[in-house]
């Protein structure tokens, strides 16, 4: 349904000499799927979606939606797409209903059909209590639901959502998840970006993990996790180990039978992340540590998660990647990028 081929995009920067947002990114979204785009902040998720929605032209590459070339026929693609942006831009002076009516007119809906559809969406998203109040007083969850309704007005074949649940209360989040699943079940192709692992894991049929503007893994959540194989063990010999001690434990354990990999996690107080295969390996580890007179502060075993997929591909966890960029993001520059 959506084909992105070899997309590259570089933002010109004043001081830094520019940022490469997308670096030869390609991905393919099957029709009728709920597709998750997972990656840390700054990975290129928003840029990808903005290019898909014809708000931004890539420096190179091709975009097609349902066989329509988005660069040659942007209007054709706009008709098929509903887009729910990350920063919800609403008109504070209008009521929610007036905003939906305006949006309906921009999509050329007939007046009666428009108002019928609005009533339908008000029911679907539980907005009747406040839809006739001015948008200026809406909470984050209300705004997001209104924006989702705006994206769905024209019954798009493809719904694109940029971080639809960031900062939302549980109730709004659950409401949005339900609507997305219903849409997918009714045949709409849904593409959403997220930096919440659980969200993508729970919702998506297919996903792509992106990092630094490139796709580093793609498939269904189960495929990706199964492809990694093995169980994950997080081991701390003390609450806070020194690097020396962690390296000592690493060399002690890395040759044990059933241990595939031992990584020292510097960001997490020099804990150790192990990948193990087979039964009885954990007991074996405990024995090994006891023989070497090393304590065990914590030892946890789990199935591989999407975070492990990310860790495997990039050498860091998603959370560490988030922290690494948290200080270096320039909100002003990003606002400029999205401004026409």
């Amino acid at each position, binding site marked *: 349904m959506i084909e992105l081929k070899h997309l590259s995009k570089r933002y010109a920067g004043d001081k830094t000499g520019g940022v490469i947002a997308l670096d030869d990114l390609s991905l393919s979204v099957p029709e009728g799927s709920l597709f998750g785009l997972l990656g840390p902040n700054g990975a290129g998720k928003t840029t990808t979606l903005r290019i898909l929605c014809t708000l931004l032209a890539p420096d190179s590459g091709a975009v097609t939606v349902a066989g329509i070339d988005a660069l040659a026929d942007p*209007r054709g693609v706009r008709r098929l797409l509903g*887009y729910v942006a990350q920063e919800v831009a609403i008109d504070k002076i209008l009521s929610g209903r007036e905003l939906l009516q305006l949006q309906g*007119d*921009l999509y*050329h809906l007939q007046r009666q059909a428009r108002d019928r559809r609005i009533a339908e969406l008000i029911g679907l998203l539980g907005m009747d209590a406040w839809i006739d109040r001015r948008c200026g007083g809406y909470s984050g969850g209300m705004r997001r639901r209104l924006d989702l309704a705006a994206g769905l007005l024209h019954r798009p074949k493809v719904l694109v959502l940029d971080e639809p649940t960031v900062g939302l209360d549980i109730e709004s989040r659950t409401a949005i998840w339900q609507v997305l699943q219903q849409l997918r079940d009714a045949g709409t192709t849904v593409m959403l970006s997220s930096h919440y692992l659980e969200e993508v894991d729970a919702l998506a049929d297919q996903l792509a993990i992106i990092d630094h503007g490139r796709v580093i893994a793609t498939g269904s959540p189960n495929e990706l996790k199964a492809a990694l194989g093995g169980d994950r063990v997080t081991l701390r010999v003390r609450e806070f180990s020194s690097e020396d001690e962690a390296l000592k434990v690493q060399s002690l354990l890395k040759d044990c039978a059933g241990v595939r990999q031992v990584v020292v996690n510097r960001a997490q107080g020099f804990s150790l992340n192990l990948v193990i295969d087979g039964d009885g390996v954990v007991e074996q580890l405990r024995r090994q540590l006891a023989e070497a007179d090393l304590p065990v502060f914590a030892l946890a075993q789990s199935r591989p998660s999407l975070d492990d997929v990310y860790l495997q591909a990039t050498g860091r966890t998603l959370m560490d990647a988030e922290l690494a960029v948290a200080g270096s993001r320039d909100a002003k520059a990003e606002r400029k990028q999205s401004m026409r």
Partner: protein
Amino acid sequence: MTTAHPSLEAPTPAAEPSALAEISQETLALTRRLFVQLARRPSTLVAGVLQPLIWLILFGALFANAPAGLLPGGISYGRFLGAGVIVFTAFSGALNAGLPVMFDREFGFLNRMLVAPLRSRSSIVLASVLYITALSLVQSAAIMVTAALLGYGWPGGAGLLLVLVTLLLLVFAVTALSLGLAFALPGHIELIAVIFVANLPLLFASTALAPLSFMPGWLGWLAALNPLTFAIEPIRAAYAGDLSLSTVVLVAPYGTLNTVTCLGILAALAFGLFLAIRPLLDRKLS
């Protein structure tokens, strides 16, 4: 191209509605939004009427006792000032045309419009032009009525038509300029600064407050090149009851201009400015 399988061909949309119908639907919706904003936040309108009213009342009174015969044609200062303030009202109203667009750019609302399959992106510009034209004309009408009540005169039926045409041309030109600035400048602070700086000097360096004959040579040149002057003089003539289009309304340092020439210059300016900002709009709205 190979022959496509029938099911793979794009379905032909059921009788696409005409471009005109779609463009008017989107333009009307966008214009309605601007008017709803105005109705719920009328301070722009109030200030836009109040400011020229103060000019008219206070500035008009300033020279009430000036020696008779001071002004060409022996008219009172209030009568002289009327045309200037009417034009200034329309001008400063139209100069604000870019502000709603700028806020839409900054708050991302423009992106919401651009994601929609607008039949023509000109609808966004057209809505602004319709809105600001209506608003400027309402403000100008309020000033004209006040001027009449103050005893500064009222143009007749044909005179009104001349006033209307003149104001429309000026409003179109200034709106084009303001919309161009709204897309060229980085933010509303800069736009407001430009509006603020442009406003008063353009008023002073025109024939709104004093005739050319009162000014030193250099200022006379500036005033005789100022677009506001080309709008003020035909309206002043209309107020004086002189509706002949070939009457000389401005004796500029470079020659004499009649009403038709003034209107022609304004029309060329409006047309030229819209042409000039088109590449910018095409780029920003592509």
